[in-house]
């Protein structure tokens, strides 16, 4: 029975071209073979802006695409790092430092960037009370 992993490179590349960034990241997490392939190919994306704001116990990274934007918050938590990416979706990564997790994700985002040019990357100190944000 043929599987996705047995498809020729051309097929895999084309499926990645047809997929959006978030779907590719999910696909990347599904198995090592796909992760390696995606890291080698670096599929095209319309990522245009990366905005990272940090404070002593909180980091917010916002990534913008042509048609959407998503924001991920990383907070210090008593059990590790609280990652939140929408009003209702969040998770505690136990025994993890929020700074390590955030930096790993940002590194992953930057590594996935292909040849197209970003409009800008902002890395800045958080200026407002993030707990009320």
């Amino acid at each position, binding site marked *: 029975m043929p599987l996705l992993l047995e498809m020729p490179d051309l097929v895999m590349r084309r499926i990645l071209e047809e997929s959006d960034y978030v779907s590719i990241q999910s696909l990347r997490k599904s*198995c090592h073979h796909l992760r390696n392939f995606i890291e080698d190919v670096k599929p095209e994306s319309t990522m245009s802006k990366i905005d990272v704001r940090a404070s002593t116990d909180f980091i917010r990274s916002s990534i913008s695409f042509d048609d959407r934007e998503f924001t991920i918050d990383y907070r210090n938590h008593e059990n590790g790092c609280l990652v939140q990416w929408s009003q209702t979706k969040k998770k505690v990564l*136990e025994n993890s430092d929020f700074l390590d*997790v955030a930096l790993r994700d940002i590194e992953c985002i930057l590594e996935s960037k292909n040849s197209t040019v970003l409009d800008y990357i902002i890395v800045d100190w958080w200026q407002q009370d993030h707990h009320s944000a």
Partner: protein
Amino acid sequence: MSCEEPTTSPTPENNITVVSSDGKEFLLDLKLTEQSETLARLISNFEYDRTDVKKDPVPLGNITSAQMQKIIEWLQHHRYYPKWEQNDIHYSTSFTFETWVEEYLNIPNNEMFELLNAANYLNIPRLFSTICRIMASRITGKSAEQIRTVLNIKTDVKNDVYTGIPIQEDSSSSEDGMSEISLSPSPPPI
């Protein structure tokens, strides 16, 4: 868009015979073969479009009769469609397909992959691109775990070389309940 018109039966003058891997012969109208760059090039090279040239059956060793039947169905439906042009890769991520296409490709993944291989082999760009889009649509919005289920991807978790026990993920990289959006968790460990 409706491009369907009454189809004509192939006659010896305007057709070629292709033979599937299981030995079944199919009479193909030359008009249909225009959608396959592989067949079109072959016909051009051997001048099979000339009536005074003897046409030998074309063996298609990578394609079964079931796949060939499915492909002919596709070629018939798109017989009068304009020549395929590659879309810009940055087009909308919303996946919309013709009802006919949705019904045509309402098949199990393994058959879809076989058809994709056949479309790749015969170089039928419209079919190839459509199946890739359908596959992408099946991935969109799903978590890694859901993708594994949908695409029948086996995790490549390895056993500990000393104990033979599967190596456990540490809690920080567990994917349970993770959204499609967080990048932190890695695939299951090797």
